[in-house]
């Protein structure tokens, strides 16, 4: 069958073009993933070495011991995703429909933070949210924050950091899907006596759903595994599962437990994505 397929000119070209990508994924994704799976079933310690023993208790131990951090990760990532969507949608809408000749410049502004490395941007938030910084002092003066209150080293700061850091991943897909909308469809809705809001909810928003789906996934998935924001902006009780994996891997050198946790995290994310795709309809994933 394979041969018959390759004989057709178009088919073989497609496969040739796919080959580098497939090779890359095999070497840099599938092989490490297999190694990680193997490692997650090992037991032992750094002192005496690790051995493969089908040690499933790495998984049960991760769930029973760190359920709190798993839940917190998904809660933080979920909240950050929703806020990023609410903030980005009007921005993307405005650029797509009203940006005119400034479109490219405005898009550049959204991407601009990426010119500075992730770590530095997050460290900058430490200064911005610092207890003696302008933001905290202003909020205290406005009685939004109680005297002696703080932003840095709180869950709020962690969620804010995640939202900020992943915002462009939300805004850009939204822009792309909004930009592609045929304006005559909206005019048609208005010609048929739809109000502006009704036209938006019945025409524009449904047509932008592929962007919403892509944006939420691109934000939620990396956010759930993030640990930098919790480490730099959080306090003693704001750690996410990424911090635990980091501590297992880097501090305790307990590779099997860290590998098992990574797999659990991946499995939960995959399950959530499947449920989500089902709910919104899988054709929205591809647009």
């Amino acid at each position, binding site marked *: 069958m394979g041969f018959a397929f390759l004989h057709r000119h178009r088919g073989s070209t497609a496969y040739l073009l796919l080959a580098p990508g497939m090779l890359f994924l095999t070497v840099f994704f599938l092989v490490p993933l297999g190694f990680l799976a193997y490692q997650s079933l090992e037991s032992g310690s750094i*002192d005496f070495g690790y051995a493969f023993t089908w040690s499933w208790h790495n998984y049960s131990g991760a769930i029973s011991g760190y359920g709190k951090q798993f839940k917190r990760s998904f809660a933080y990532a979920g909240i950050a995703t929703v806020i990023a969507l609410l903030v980005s949608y009007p921005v993307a809408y405005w650029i797509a429909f009203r940006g005119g000749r400034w479109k490219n410049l405005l898009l550049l502004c959204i991407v601009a933070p990426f010119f500075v490395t992730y770590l530095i941007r997050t460290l900058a938030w430490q200064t911005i949210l*610092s207890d*003696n910084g302008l933001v905290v002092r202003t909020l205290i003066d406005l009685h939004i924050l109680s005297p002696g209150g703080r932003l840095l*080293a709180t869950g709020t700061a962690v969620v804010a950091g995640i939202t900020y850091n992943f915002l462009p991943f939300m805004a850009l897909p939204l822009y792309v899907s909004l930009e592609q909308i045929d304006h005559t469809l909206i005019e048609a809705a208005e010609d048929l006596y739809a109000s502006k809001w009704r036209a938006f909810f019945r025409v524009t928003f449904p047509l932008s759903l592929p962007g919403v789906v892509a944006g939420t996934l691109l934000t939620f998935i990396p956010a759930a595994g993030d640990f930098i924001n919790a480490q730099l902006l959080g306090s*003693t*009780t704001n750690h996410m599962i990424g911090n635990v994996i980091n*501590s297992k891997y880097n*501090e*305790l*050198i307990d590779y099997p437990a860290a590998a098992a946790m990574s797999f659990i995290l991946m499995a939960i994310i995959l399950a959530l994505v499947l449920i989500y795709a089902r709910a919104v309809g899988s054709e929205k994933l591809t647009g």
Partner: protein
Amino acid sequence: MTDPITRKVFLRRAAASGSILTVPGLLAACGGGSGSPSAGGGTTVAPKLAKTLHFSNWTLYIDNKPGGRHPSLDQFQKKYGVHVDYREDINDNASFFSKIEPDLARGQSTGRDIIVMTDNSRYPSLLVKKGWVEKLDKSAIPNIKNLVPQQRHPSWDPNRDYSLPWQSGFTGVGWNEKLTDPVTSMGDLLGNKKLKGKVGLLTEFSDTLALVMAYNGDDPSHITDKTFNKAIDTIQKAVHAGQIRQFYGNDYASALSNGDLVATMAWSGDIVQLQADNSHLKWQLPDTGGDIWTDNMLIPKGGDVYTASVYMNWVYTPKIAAEIEDYVNYVCPVLGAKEALVKQDPAIANNPLIFPTKQMLDNAHIIDPTALNNEKYQTTWQNLISA
């Protein structure tokens, strides 16, 4: 196993020397008379100095001049023609170890010739046990005679075959006197409501544990399950009460100097250096006692033993040790450095943080080394600090 080391090191060295080809090379060629046996091209195979020495250290841990210059390293380069690639990339022992562990486990060079790790962590002994550090070339370190006697026979390296102390230091409590009354007890640090949310503890297992155990009235040099659990409970209570802002590595320094922390567990010499920018910072051993530790220079497998040993010999010259001490303000392990420093900077030479008094030494505990390798303790600790 050794093949990849030599090859990788060779390539790296070749690349490094290519980029700084001229001046240091010439100096190395001229510097033959300055105590280096490598200059003569005789019949015996004499060890040769590398062009570059890769040295990884903690932040705020060497003499420093504006523009990021380190005079002691400049002098070393001038004398031996070896450029020192000095990197301040150690923030805490555990995360640095995990950074180099994958290379060491595969028998590859870490790209470093000298690293500095603390004896109150499990890692120096682990590195020796695993065979992941090179033996010092003691023939190149005659100045080893200047090592203070009490440091000559640590349990994990009884003859100092693999290590030499860089600095020792105390773990105590630092505070900002502009923002609080003096914080001189662990009880105050962990319980004073006025400090709520403005207190830092250290991520280092032994530093935090030793101080809390001493506060509980237990002996940090003989840890039992009971005293360990009691210490964990004490810390947990403070965490639940919101007293503790975060567990810090060396990064507590910036939080303390910008006022996000009012009081924190802190390493002695750091505070002296931070006082240069913020004169309100104070430091003291807590009334129930602090701990004392030693950072050790080690040569990771694949490092250049001879060049690293020549460098170690250089820092064990009293005059050079005094120059470094004048800046870092930690406890100096080199005999004769005090006398040399008295001439340069008498105020520093009489600072008990650098040449401690007997009373301070009596009030400083050394952590139970067996607890460092207890997996159960380590896991409990990590769960506490990454809750």
